């Protein structure tokens, strides 16, 4: 395998990893606090994408540059409205029930959202590529890349990573979220309002999923079922990283992104398998995931 391929694969892997990271870190964050695996996370990704596209097409005539803020607005909108409503009215009532049932609720939401999506945006592919077109192409070893993919996406991902780190380490609400993540009982014992933390966290997580979708929207056709595969992929990343692990998600997303890119160059047939194989190997060796922590039950 010559050096060209290596460099190209890295470029491709980066942009892919960036999207995967955004989605899976949201999933991971939510799990860390609510102890719920949100099956509807992929749908939030899809809604983020569709909403972003809709907004972009709306504002593009005014000024194409407005499409960039549109992406951001879309993700926050989806995260807050859809995510907020979902947590408040569908998850909050079932926190006292078994985990299985909570999981199933999100599965039901997935089915509903998937269906509504078809009703709202129809089945014809939607495409809003303004942001990509605005930025110039970059040539790497004579191969063209859109700077949107090799620069914007990775930068946003890195920014998000550090933003989250800062938020969780150095702000009060962040500290509270961390506290709940690390020890729910203790945190609630010292009088933290779990309800509020849950809501906020879920909205953040949902917004991240939506952001992933929004950022993907300029590069891809939006079609029914686009969220369905994303959810499983982000599961794999989150689990491999260790649920609730922010940095872990970043590293894992990178590993999976690069591995996938290389495989497409070397043995394209295996592409789809990569994330799951990596996940299984990691969990075989580290049951709690790369960065997960294992704590013994007190008796």
């Amino acid at each position, binding site marked *: 395998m010559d050096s*060209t*391929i290596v460099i*190209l*694969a890295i*470029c*491709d*892997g980066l*942009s*892919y990893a960036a999207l995967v990271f955004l989605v899976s870190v949201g999933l991971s964050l939510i799990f860390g606090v609510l102890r719920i695996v949100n099956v509807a996370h992929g749908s939030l990704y899809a809604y983020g994408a569709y909403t972003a596209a809709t907004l972009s097409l709306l504002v593009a005539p005014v000024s194409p540059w407005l499409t960039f803020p549109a992406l951001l607005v879309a993700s926050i909108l989806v995260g807050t409205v859809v995510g907020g409503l979902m947590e408040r009215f569908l998850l909050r009532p079932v926190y006292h029930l078994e985990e299985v049932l909570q999981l199933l609720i999100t599965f039901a939401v997935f089915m509903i959202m998937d269906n509504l999506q*078809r009703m709202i945006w129809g*089945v*014809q*592919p939607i*495409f809003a*590529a303004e942001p*990509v*077109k605005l930025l110039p*192409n970059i040539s790497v*070893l*004579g*191969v*063209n*890349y*859109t700077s949107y*993919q090799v620069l914007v996406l990775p930068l946003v991902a890195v920014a998000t990573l550090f933003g989250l780190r800062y938020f969780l380490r150095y702000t009060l609400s962040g500290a509270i979220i961390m506290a709940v993540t690390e020890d729910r009982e203790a945190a609630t014992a010292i009088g933290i309002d779990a309800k509020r933390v849950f809501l906020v966290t879920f909205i953040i997580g949902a917004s991240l999923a939506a952001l992933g979708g929004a950022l*993907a929207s300029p*590069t*891809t*056709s*939006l*079609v*029914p*079922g*686009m969220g369905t*595969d994303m959810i499983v992929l982000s599961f794999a990343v989150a689990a491999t990283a260790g649920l609730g692990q922010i940095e872990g998600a970043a590293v894992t997303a990178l590993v999976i992104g690069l591995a*996938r*890119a290389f495989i*497409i*160059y070397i043995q*394209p*047939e295996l*592409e*789809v398998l990569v994330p799951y194989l990596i996940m299984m190997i990691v969990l075989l060796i580290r049951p709690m995931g790369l960065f997960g922590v294992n704590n013994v039950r007190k008796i």
Partner: protein
Amino acid sequence: MIQPITALARMSAAAALAATLLAFPAQAQDKPKELKIGIATFLSGPASVFGVPAKAAAEMIAEDLNKKGGIGGVPVSVSFIDEGAGGEALVSNYRRMVQDDKVDVTFAAISSGSCGQLAPLAEDLKMLNLMWDCGASSILEAKKYRYNFRSQANGTPEMLAVLAYLLKTKPDFKTIAVVNQDYAWGRESWEIFSTALKVMKPDVKVVAELFPKFGAPDFSTEISRLLALKPDVVLTTSWGGDLDTLVRQAGQRGLLQQSAFVLGIGESSMQRLGKDLPDGLIIGARGDHWFLHPEMKNDPAFKAFNEAFKAKTGSWPIYSVYHMQQAFSAYQGAVEKAMKANGGKWPSREQVIDAAEGLEFKGWGRGVSLRPEDHQGLEAQIVGVSKTAPGYDFKVLDDMMIFEPKAITTPAGQKSVDWLKTLPPDFVAKLNVQTFKHGG
């Protein structure tokens, strides 16, 4: 288990009643009050880009047909089942359609997967079925059916026409790469294309065979690889969102400019891609139809049909719409032919089938015929290149060639791939076709 089952019992008791009330046995002689047409099409999932327009077309055509007095004086009614609901629901619904709703004919289906699943079932249920859109030639080559017909061409002539066009217009390419969806059509179409290519141009080197996952959202890695490999020609028989994404991402990164692209069935994406589709790409129409068909475009009925469809759905018809029309024409043709044969009396299903064998009917192109030996449809193929045209905010077909079905369709009783291997190297040179300019 009590509640659901009793509930279920109630529902279906009702259903049973309804069935008996509604059932008009389409036995010989006695003329039914209406002809029920059950249609399997994609109402959900990616392939609904074909299914939904086709559904609209079916409703439109049925309405229009009834205005004209229906088929053999009998009005038609259409009902639909969703191919997107998954294999199980599809089969169950098909059974319901046939056994409870007692439809007189079924049009099934779009995906070769569904056809492969429903054709044997139709045979079991002795139900006349027109495979109205699915392209896999193998279905009718592997097994001899009585109740199943294909009212349009299949993958072999479609690919062969595209290849012929490529060889006629860009004869001297050395390398080719393929990017197809990873499912039957993507694989089969490439098998047909590459087999024929090997025969006619053995020196061409295949530099990459990429089969990204069906519905893949992102092809940037595949594109990088092609940009690095610099093949002379890139073939893709993808469709729907996959094709849109591929073309746009390739366009954004200059791949469309670097290599000559062949979009095997790209006609269905042209209106969506708009200006993102550059000029000069080779595009197949999956048959002898195109809303600006060079021989038909001045036919008032044809124009009216297209206008009406545009008014109803907001876009011009794509091939699945014309295939739906062909299914209706085929059925109408068969019934009326059978009636004639039956001395004007209403024909039985078996008589309709006998009539269908060897039937010649007209869709919105040159005539189509149903080959008696294997029930394959014989239909011409239009291939052209994309071109900017005044009055349209998307690219249209130019330099169109219409390939007659005879030469490019696998003879009855042969398997496509074996037949392709027997083609002479000068096959394409021997094909003489007319070329039509857009608007010319």
